[in-house]
Each structure stands twice: as structure tokens, then as C-alpha cells.
């Protein structure tokens, strides 16, 4: 049981034309079983926040801590999944999934055994030795998720992981993601540009707005839990409360812009 806590995190990029406040005093708690989705217009600091949590950049102000211990740079407790170009084309599917384990010095037989678990969890059995560039976009992203899970991190940080997929593939990968999330009980921080995706996946939604990038609203959601309890995805997305919330979120985003 652990909690990730971002406290008044600000990130300022120095620039010739004046400093850019990419993120302004953002505070966020991601607890056990949370699936936090960040939504907002381009330039609202979502990716900056994710990069700060991942440890790729140090906050100008504020702290990010896991169970009270400040993070110092990237670490194996936080795994990342990106939109694209993040798989290693020189490795086949299973070696990609086992990549993190290889970095961590796990011996080959053991890491294949662990990788195989996550391959089957994401429905990738039979593709172990395929080249990643021969897979469809949806399967590539599933390989990316399996790779992130294989090292058993505390939290998954996902930066628009489904952004490059077509609408139909996207919906099916969303459902796979929810099932994987409920089975592995990982914390998730997920960035998207799609309001529907945000509402469907998240247990908590944070709305962000640009210049300076900041968190403007927070919603608690239960659509994902309803899906996992057996309600069909289409029925949830067509339900009255889903539509109302979608319109509410959209009006806030457009009101801010």
C-alpha cells in the first residue's frame, strides 16, 4: 500500500522571451487502486506533470514523494507508456516486454517466464517472436503496457498511450486496459485528449488549463468500476449520467480556453 503525493509542484522553463510556467502549483494524490486521468488543452502541463512524476525533469518548486520519500530522478517504481516510438524495433515482442527486467539484471529464463505472464494478460500469446514493427498499432501499445507492467512498478504513467490508434481499436484497448488494471491493482496516471476516454477509464479526473498550466477541477468517477462490474461499455457511454458529465467537462474545457 503506497501513495504518490505531488505537492505544489511548479515547473518553469527559462526562455529568451520570458519564463514559461509549464506547471503552476499542481497538487495531486494518487492512492492505492486510483486511476487518475488528466485532461486538458495542449500546453496545459499534463505531460510536464507526468515527466515530473516520472522523474525526467525536476520540479522548480514543490515536491513529489512516494510514501513520504521524495523521488530523485526516474526509478523502477514508476513505469511509463508513451504514444509511440517507444518500443525497441531491434527486439522482438518478448524481448521488448522483458526489456525492463533485462535492465534490472534478471536472467533470461526468469525474465521470459515473467514476460510471458504479461503477454497473456494482454492477449499477446503467439506473438512472442514477432517483430514489433510488424504488429498493428493496437498490439504495439499492448506490448508497451506489458513491458511497463513486467517490472511490477507501483504506478503506471501513461502519456496519451492510445492517441495514435483508430477509434475502434482504441475502444477495445481501453477495455483491455481496465481489465488489466483491475487484475494488477496498479495505480495509474493517464493523459488523454479524449473526454470519453477520460470518463470511461478514470476513477478520478483532473482538468488542467494552460498558461500557466494548472489543475482547475477534480472529479470522482465510477464508470470504470461499473464496466468492471459487468455493465457493457456501450451502455455506460450512452447512459444519461455519462453524457451529462461529458457535457459538463467539455463546457469547462471550452470555458477555460
Amino acid at each position, binding site marked *: 500500500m503506497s501513495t504518490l503525493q505531488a505537492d505544489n509542484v511548479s515547473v518553469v522553463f527559462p526562455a529568451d522571451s520570458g519564463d514559461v510556467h509549464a506547471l503552476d502549483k499542481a497538487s495531486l494524490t494518487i492512492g492505492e487502486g486510483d486511476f487518475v486521468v488528466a485532461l486538458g488543452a495542449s500546453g496545459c502541463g499534463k505531460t510536464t506533470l507526468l515527466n515530473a512524476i*516520472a*522523474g*525526467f525533469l525536476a520540479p522548480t518548486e514543490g515536491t513529489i514523494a512516494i510514501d513520504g520519500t521524495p523521488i530523485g*530522478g*526516474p*526509478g*523502477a517504481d*514508476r*513505469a*511509463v507508456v*508513451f*504514444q*509511440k*516510438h*517507444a*518500443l*525497441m*524495433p*531491434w527486439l522482438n515482442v518478448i524481448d521488448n516486454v522483458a*526489456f*525492463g527486467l*533485462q*535492465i*534490472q539484471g534478471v536472467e533470461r529464463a526468469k525474465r521470459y517466464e515473467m514476460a510471458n505472464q504479461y503477454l497473456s494478460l494482454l492477449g499477446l500469446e503467439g506473438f512472442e517472436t514477432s*517483430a*514489433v*514493427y510488424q504488429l498493428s498499432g493496437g498490439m504495439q501499445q499492448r506490448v508497451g503496457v506489458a*513491458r511497463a507492467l513486467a*517490472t511490477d512498478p507501483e504506478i503506471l*504513467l501513461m502519456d496519451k498511450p492510445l492517441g495514435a490508434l483508430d477509434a475502434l481499436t482504441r475502444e477495445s484497448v481501453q477495455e483491455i486496459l481496465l481489465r488489466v488494471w483491475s487484475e494488477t491493482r496498479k495505480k495509474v496516471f493517464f493523459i488523454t485528449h479524449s473526454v470519453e476516454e477520460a470518463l470511461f477509464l478514470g476513477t478520478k479526473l483532473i482538468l488542467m488549463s494552460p498558461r500557466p498550466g494548472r489543475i482547475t477541477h477534480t472529479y470522482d468517477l465510477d464508470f470504470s468500476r461499473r464496466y468492471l462490474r459487468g455493465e457493457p461499455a456501450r451502455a455506460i457511454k450512452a447512459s444519461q449520467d455519462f453524457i451529462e458529465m461529458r457535457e459538463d467537462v467539455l463546457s469547462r474545457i471550452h470555458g477555460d480556453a
Partner: protein
Amino acid sequence: MTVEANHKQAGRGIARVLMNIGRRRRPTTEVYGQPGAGRSSLISFATAFVLLLVWWLVTNAELVKPLFLPPPEMVFDKFVEVSSEGFNNATLFEHALQSIMRVFAAFALACVTAIPIGIGMGVNKLMRGLFDPPIEFYRPIPPLAYLPLIIIWFGIGETSKILLIYLGIFAPLALSARAGVRSASIEQIHVAYSFGASRWQVLKHVVFKAALPEILTGMRIAIGFGWTVLVAAEMVAATSGLGYMVLSASEFLNTSVVILGIIVIGFLAYMFDMIMRFIEGKLVPWKGRA
């Protein structure tokens, strides 16, 4: 129909035949595909054939004197003669072997030095600062310009010859390795760091691997430079080698041997490029696909 119109008609017919060479017979629906898609090997064969034919025609019709351009069969006779009896105390095989040894010794030396230095320049600003000025300075200078200096410093032995070829290969190879390390995407690098990778692990598992396609392309280009410099290198007190063979034949206006040497150098360079392409296909099948 006038004669002129007839000619036009025939010209169009030839153009159509040429356009259709290499085109697949199976009808294709990719009318709006990528410009230049499809295999061109048949056209290449046709080009080679036509060039040979033109060569044969102009020489056998005695439009050009054999001193300037001997007919192909004369060059072939020379090929047989030089292969068996030799030219200036060495057979064609010995000349070729000597040149191959020089080019490959220089190439091997360049690979073990230029690739690490180029990678170093890509990932380390101290290395970049150290090596960038000398490499960028000497790179555009024609090898013939610094050949005298090399002879003054290193004499007229084998060292100078290999060194000259080596310098021709070094710069393009180092630069491609340097550019290659930029191939890894920031996402790939971030993924490795997020698994707790050290800087060295990021280099080893991501940056070097991603650089491989560009380094292999660099090797192909660089050895091409090696063959280019070969003749210049063998201008100096050589007693065998294809470049030497060409140069000494030219002094006796032995044009057949000059052409023979040129063809053999071109053939060897082409063969090596084929081998490199094959290796590329095996080593970096993902090239251009991810």
C-alpha cells in the same frame, strides 16, 4: 506518312518499350502510389546491356580509335592475358588482392577508430569539442592535396598508402556514427531510464542499437570513399595494385589495361556494397520501419 513522322512513331515505340521494362505484368491498382516504387533491376540490366552495345558499336564501326577507346573484346582479351600472364610482374588477381588488402586494412582500422570516436562525439561534448575541428577541417580537402605531406612524414611504404585510404574513410564514417546516436527517440531513452537504467545501460541498450542502421549506411558510403582514394594511394612507389596497374598502363598508353582496371575496381566496390546490403538486411531488418 513522312519519314519524319515515321521516326517519331518509332521513337515513341522505343520509349514505350523502355517504360514497360521492369513493370510488373500483373495489373496493379497502386496508380497513385509512391513515386518511383517497384523494382528497377530489369531496367538496370537493360542499361548495362545498352552501354556495352554502344561501346561495341562505336569501336567496331571505327568511330573511335582503339588508343582512346579499345573495343570490349580487346579489353576482354587483356583480361584473359593479364589474368594468366600478368602485367608488370603481377597477375590481375595479385593486383586486385593487393588493392583489396590495402582498402580493407584501412577500412578495418577506420571501423575500430572512427565508429567509437563518432559515437563518442555524439554522446559526449568533450569528445565533440576535441574531434570536431580537426575532422571538419580535413574532411573536404582532396586526399591528393595532403598526399605529399603524408609521404614526407611517413615515407613511400605501405603505411602511407593505407593511411591515405584510412583518412578518406575515417571522416564520413565518424560523422555517420555521430549522427546515428541521435536516432534513438527520447521516449525510448525515457523508457530505459524509468526502468532504473544507468547512463551506460541507456547507451548500450538503446542509443547504440538505434545508431546501428546509420552506422552501417556510413560504412557503405565510407568504403566507397576508400576505393576512390585507392588510385591516389597507389601513385606512390607502388609495385602492384589495381591503381598502380591503371597508372602505369596509362603511361604506355595501354588503354585496354586502364579500362580493365577501372572495370575491376568498379566491380569490386559494387560487390562489397552488395555484401554490405545483405549484412544490413540481416542485422537491421527494422531499418526505416520503426
